[in-house]
């Protein structure tokens, strides 16, 4: 498996990256940590004419936070965010999900924004952004825009990014008072792609549950404070709505069952964490 030919540009400025994206459109791909893109190139599922390496732009390699939000730049590697001393305090859901992203040996190179750009249906970071009502900051030569996570992930590995845009950062809200967070995942082996992953956020009025790994892109529901069989029914309905499919790794009914079980476990843990 060898990639087809492409040019390589190590961007020295953001303007250079933008100009190349504007000129080449869909023939250009942004290269960050490469942990999703390089296998796509090797398998020739992606055949860009030019790769724009953005890892030598120091302004993109920053984690910035105030009391309300965390901004994670396009150059921030997953391992760096996981090792950030404030991560548990600032956003426990990100801290809980990050150890599930790939393996230590891929988190060392893979970036947060790269995972968002790739938008694999079973990826943890898009799921968490959806659960948290996070947002994606896009920029092109012409303009900047902020797209909420719910509008960004549009299908199987497809997003609202335009061909001339790059993801400059993603934004996640910080832990909110009175909120509880929990993450659950099932895979065949730790670090493998999730068969089902869930992220739950519990708050005073109810709970928000996001599920990944089942449908083409992560899905989210908001529930009032349900308990007992009402919660079971709601989860069952969610599981059926997700359009699960059989594949090599799991049957559709197994996936639905994981949604019910893991969904409930995540919701209960998130509620406990509120207290």
């Amino acid at each position, binding site marked *: 498996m060898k990639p*087809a*030919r*492409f040019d390589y540009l190590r961007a020295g400025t953001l303007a250079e990256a933008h100009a190349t994206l504007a000129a080449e459109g869909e023939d250009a791909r942004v290269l960050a940590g490469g942990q999703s893109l390089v*296998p796509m190139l*090797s398998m020739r599922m992606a055949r860009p004419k030019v790769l724009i*390496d953005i890892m030598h732009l120091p302004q993109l390699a920053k984690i910035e936070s105030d009391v309300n939000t965390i901004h994670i730049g396009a150059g921030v590697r997953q391992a760096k965010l996981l090792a950030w001393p404030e991560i548990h305090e600032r956003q426990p859901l990100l801290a809980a999900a990050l150890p599930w992203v790939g393996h*230590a040996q891929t988190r060392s190179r893979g970036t947060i924004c790269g995972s968002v750009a790739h938008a694999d249906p079973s990826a943890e970071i898009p799921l968490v952004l959806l659960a948290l009502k996070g947002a994606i900051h896009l920029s092109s030569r012409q303009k900047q825009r902020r797209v909420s996570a719910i509008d960004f992930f549009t299908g199987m590995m497809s997003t609202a990014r335009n061909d001339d845009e790059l993801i400059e950062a993603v934004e996640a809200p910080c832990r909110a008072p009175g909120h509880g967070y929990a993450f659950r995942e099932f895979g065949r082996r730790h670090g493998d792609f999730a068969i089902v992953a869930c992220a739950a956020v519990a708050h005073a009025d109810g709970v928000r549950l996001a599920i990944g790994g089942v449908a083409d892109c992560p899905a989210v529901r908001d529930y009032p404070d349900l308990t007992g069989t009402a919660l079971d029914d709601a989860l069952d309905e969610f599981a059926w709505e997700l359009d699960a499919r059989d594949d090599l790794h799991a049957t559709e009914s197994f996936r639905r069952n994981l949604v019910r079980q893991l969904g409930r476990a995540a919701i209960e843990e998130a509620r406990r964490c509120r207290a």
Partner: protein
Amino acid sequence: MPRMSADANHRIRFKLNGRMVEADAEPRMLLTDFLRYNLAMTGTHVGCEHGVCGACTIEIDGVPARACLTLAVQADGADIRTIEGLAPAPGRLSVLQEAFRRHHALQCGFCTAGILLSLECYLRDNPSPDEATLRDYLGGHLCRCTGYVTIIAAALDAAERLRDANKDA
């Protein structure tokens, strides 16, 4: 750095096991192939070539990384360590390598270079690992021979010896 054209060869330079090396590569060349074919450093093995098996794991700028998920052009200017750089001197093994030998932590050896590099990085940052975290960490590697038990035993043993050595130092 100017745009590197797809059809041309470009000079790539990086530090490999403490020494500057250089050779030419097209932009599409994977670092695994660059190491093995262009630099004749065949200690780094290639299993799956898409990031799953861990056989190609090397150290890039102080962290473990998949060489098969890295382009040679990305590595330009980096500081890289491969299995060839582990032994302190010809005929002598590192503490971790020695522990692998004592515990029979390898059979065919295909996975071993990657696992050694990964564990070298890990033990440097975590001198007192427990078995559970080691197992989790080694989830990033496949070994079809050993069943992993001996690999974990070797890693724990090496960690202890390295701690003792540091105490004495």
